[in-house]
C-alpha cells in the first residue's frame, strides 16, 4: 500500500503546484533559442531584428492578426494536448500527425456528405466523426502497446505514414472533388463551416475549453487518477488494482480523439476541405508544445499561441526580411532542445529530469 500512497501524493503535488521556477524555464528557453536563431539569420546575411519585428508584428500587432494567430494556434493547442495526455499516462504519442490527418479527412467527408443538416447539428456531428477517426488510429497503437508490448513510438510514427498514404488515396479516388484537376475533396457544406466570432475563430474556444476539461479530468476524477498513476508507476498502479492495459488503451483513445478533433476543427474552420500534404508539421509541433508547457494541460496554451503566432507571421517575415519561413521549425527545435536540457532545468533547481517514458519492453 505504501507504494500507492507515494504515488497519490506525487500526483497531487504535480497537478496542484504552480511554482514560478518551472515557468521560468520555458521563457528562458524561448529567449535563448531566439538568440541562437538570430546568429543563424545573421550568417545568412539578413537582419535578425527586422525579421523578428516583422514576425511578431503580423502575429500580435492587430486584432485581425491576433485572429489569424489564434486560428493557427487551435490545432497546436489540441496536438499539444494530445501529446500531453499521452505523456501523463507514460505514453509518448508522436503520431498526433496521423491522428490529426485522419480527423481532418473524416470531418471533410462528413462536411460534404451530410449536406442539408442545420449547422448546430452538422458541426458537432462532423467534429465527433473527426475525433472518432483520430481515436481509432491512436487506438491501434494503444492495443499493440497493451497486448503485444510494441512500443508506441514506432507504431504511431508508422501509422503517420500509413494514414497519409490512405488519405492521399481516398482524396484522389472515392472522395475526390468531381471534374477537378487537383486532388482534393469537395468544399464542405456551408452549414458545416465553423463560424468566426468577430475576428476570433470559434475553434480556439473549443480547444481552450477542452484543455480546461482535460486538466479537470486528470486532476479531479478517478479516470484521470488512473492515467496519472499508470504514467508514474505501472507496478504500483497494477498493485493498487488498476488495469494497466485498459488504461493504456483508453489514454491512447483520448489522446487520438483530441488530435483528431484538432484536424476536424482545421477542416471546418480554416481549409474547408481536405487536400493531400497540408499541415504536415502540426503533430510534431505538438511534442514541442507539450514539453514547453511542462506537460500541463493548461500550460500548453501560451506555448501554442506563441508558436501559432510565429506560423501566422512567417510568410510576412519572408516578405519583409528574406528569411525563410522554415525559421519557425528551427526555432521550435531549439526551444525543444533547451526546454528539456537539464543545463537550464538544473539552474532552476526545483524541476527534476525524471524519466517520463520508459524503454522498449514495458
Amino acid at each position, binding site marked *: 500500500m505504501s507504494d500507492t500512497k507515494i504515488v497519490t501524493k506525487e500526483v497531487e503535488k504535480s497537478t496542484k503546484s504552480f511554482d514560478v521556477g518551472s515557468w521560468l524555464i520555458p521563457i528562458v528557453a524561448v529567449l535563448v533559442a531566439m538568440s541562437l536563431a538570430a546568429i543563424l539569420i545573421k550568417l545568412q546575411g539578413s537582419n535578425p531584428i527586422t525579421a523578428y519585428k516583422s514576425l511578431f508584428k503580423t502575429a500580435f500587432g492587430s486584432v485581425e492578426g491576433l485572429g489569424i494567430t489564434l486560428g493557427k494556434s487551435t490545432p497546436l493547442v489540441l496536438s499539444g494536448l494530445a501529446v500531453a495526455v499521452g505523456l501523463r499516462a507514460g505514453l509518448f504519442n508522436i503520431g498526433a500527425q496521423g491522428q490529426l490527418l485522419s480527423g481532418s479527412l473524416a470531418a471533410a467527408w462528413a462536411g460534404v456528405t451530410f449536406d442539408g443538416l442545420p449547422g448546430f447539428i452538422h458541426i458537432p456531428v462532423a467534429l465527433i466523426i473527426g475525433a472518432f477517426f483520430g481515436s481509432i488510429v491512436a487506438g491501434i497503437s494503444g492495443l499493440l502497446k497493451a497486448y503485444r508490448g510494441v*512500443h508506441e513510438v514506432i507504431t504511431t510514427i508508422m501509422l503517420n505514414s500509413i494514414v497519409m498514404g490512405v488519405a492521399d488515396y481516398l482524396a484522389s479516388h472515392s472522395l475526390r472533388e468531381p471534374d477537378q484537376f487537383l486532388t482534393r475533396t469537395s468544399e464542405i457544406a456551408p452549414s458545416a463551416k465553423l463560424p468566426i466570432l468577430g475576428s476570433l475563430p470559434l475553434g480556439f474556444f473549443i480547444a481552450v475549453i477542452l484543455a480546461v476539461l482535460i486538466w479537470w479530468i486528470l486532476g479531479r476524477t478517478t479516470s484521470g487518477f488512473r492515467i496519472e498513476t499508470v504514467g508514474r508507476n505501472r507496478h504500483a498502479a497494477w498493485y493498487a488494482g488498476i488495469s494497466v492495459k485498459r488504461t493504456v488503451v483508453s489514454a491512447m483513445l483520448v489522446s487520438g480523439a483530441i488530435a483528431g478533433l484538432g484536424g476536424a476543427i482545421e477542416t471546418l474552420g480554416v481549409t474547408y476541405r481536405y487536400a493531400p500534404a497540408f499541415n504536415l508539421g502540426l503533430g510534431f509541433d505538438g511534442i514541442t508544445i507539450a514539453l514547453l508547457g511542462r506537460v500541463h494541460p493548461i500550460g500548453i496554451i501560451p506555448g501554442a499561441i506563441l508558436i501559432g503566432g510565429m506560423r501566422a507571421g512567417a510568410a510576412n517575415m519572408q516578405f519583409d526580411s528574406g528569411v525563410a519561413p522554415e525559421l519557425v521549425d528551427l526555432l521550435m527545435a531549439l526551444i525543444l532542445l533547451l526546454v528539456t536540457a537539464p543545463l537550464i532545468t538544473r539552474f532552476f533547481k526545483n524541476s527534476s529530469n525524471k524519466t517520463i517514458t520508459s524503454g522498449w519492453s514495458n
Partner: protein
Amino acid sequence: MNLLTKRNSYFLLVALVTAFFYSRDASITTSVYATGTAFALPLALAAMVGIMCERTGIVNIGIEGTMLMSAFVAFFVAYITQNILIGLAAAIATGSLMGFLLALMAVSWRMDQIIAGTILNILATGLTSFLYVQGKTIPSVFSAFEVPLLSKIPFFGPVLFIHGALTFLGLAIILALYVAIYHTSWGLRSRAVGEHPSSADTAGVSVVRLRYINVTIAGAIGAIAGAYLSLELVGSFERGFVAGKGFTALALMIFGRWNPLGALAAALFFGLAQAYANQLMIDQVVNIPSQFTSILPYVMTIVVLAISAGKVRAPAAEGQPYEKGQS
C-alpha cells in the same frame, strides 16, 4: 550438428522461391534482387546504429534525424566543394557529432532517452528545412562498378557485386560489427554494459566511457547510411528525405534480435518486398495504387513488430541511465 534448424529451413524456403522465380525469368529476378539489395542497405546500416547503441543500453530513436542531417550535410558539402569524398567525410563528422550529443543527453544528463532521440529528430528536421536550398546538383555520385571476377557469377554477381562504393563499405561494416560484437573483448564489454552495467563496472569496465564511444561511432555509421541515400542511391536531397527509414530500422533491429546478421536478413526481406511491389506495378500484373505500395514498408514494420515483440528480449539495462553505486 543439426542441419534442419528453424533458421536453416527459412533459408531453404527463400532459396527455393528465388530459384523458382529465377527459372521463370532470370533477368527480371536478378534486377529485382539487385534493387532489393540497394533498398535494403540503408535500412540494414541504420539498424546497426540501433544495435550498437542498444547493446550498451542506450535507446537511439534519433537514427532518423542522424540520417537526415548527414544526408543533408553530405549533399551540400559535396555541392559546395564539388567533391563527394569531402561530402562523405563531412557527413561522418556530422553523424558522430549527433551521436555524441545523444550520449551527452542520455549518459551525462541522464535525460529520458526517447525524448533525447526525438530532440535529435526534430532538430534535424528544423535545421535541414531551414538551411535547404532548392535546385543544387552534385558533380557525381558513388556510381556502380563491377567487382572483377565476382560480378561474373550468375545471379549473385549482379545482385551483390555491382554496386557503388558505399554499398560495399556498408556491407563491410555490418560484417565487421557482427564479428566485433560476438568475438572481441570490446563486444563482450559492450554487451555486459547493456545487460548489467553495475557488474561490468565492478569488473573494471568504464560504463560511461564505453557508452559514449559506442553511441558516437554508431552516429558515424548512421551518417554513412544517410550519405548513401544522398550520394549514391538517389543523388539529390529533398526536405523529409529519409522518410521514416530510421524508425523502420528499429523494427528490423528488434526483428533481427539485436544481431547484426539477423537485422541484415530482415532488411533484405524488406528491400525485396519493396522491389517486388515496384516490379509488379511496372509490369501492370496487378493494379495496386501507388499510395498502397508506398505504405507497404510501414505496414510491414507494424506487422513484424506485432509478431516478434514479446518473443524477443531486449538488452536488460536499456533505457536506464547509469549511476555509479546502483545495483
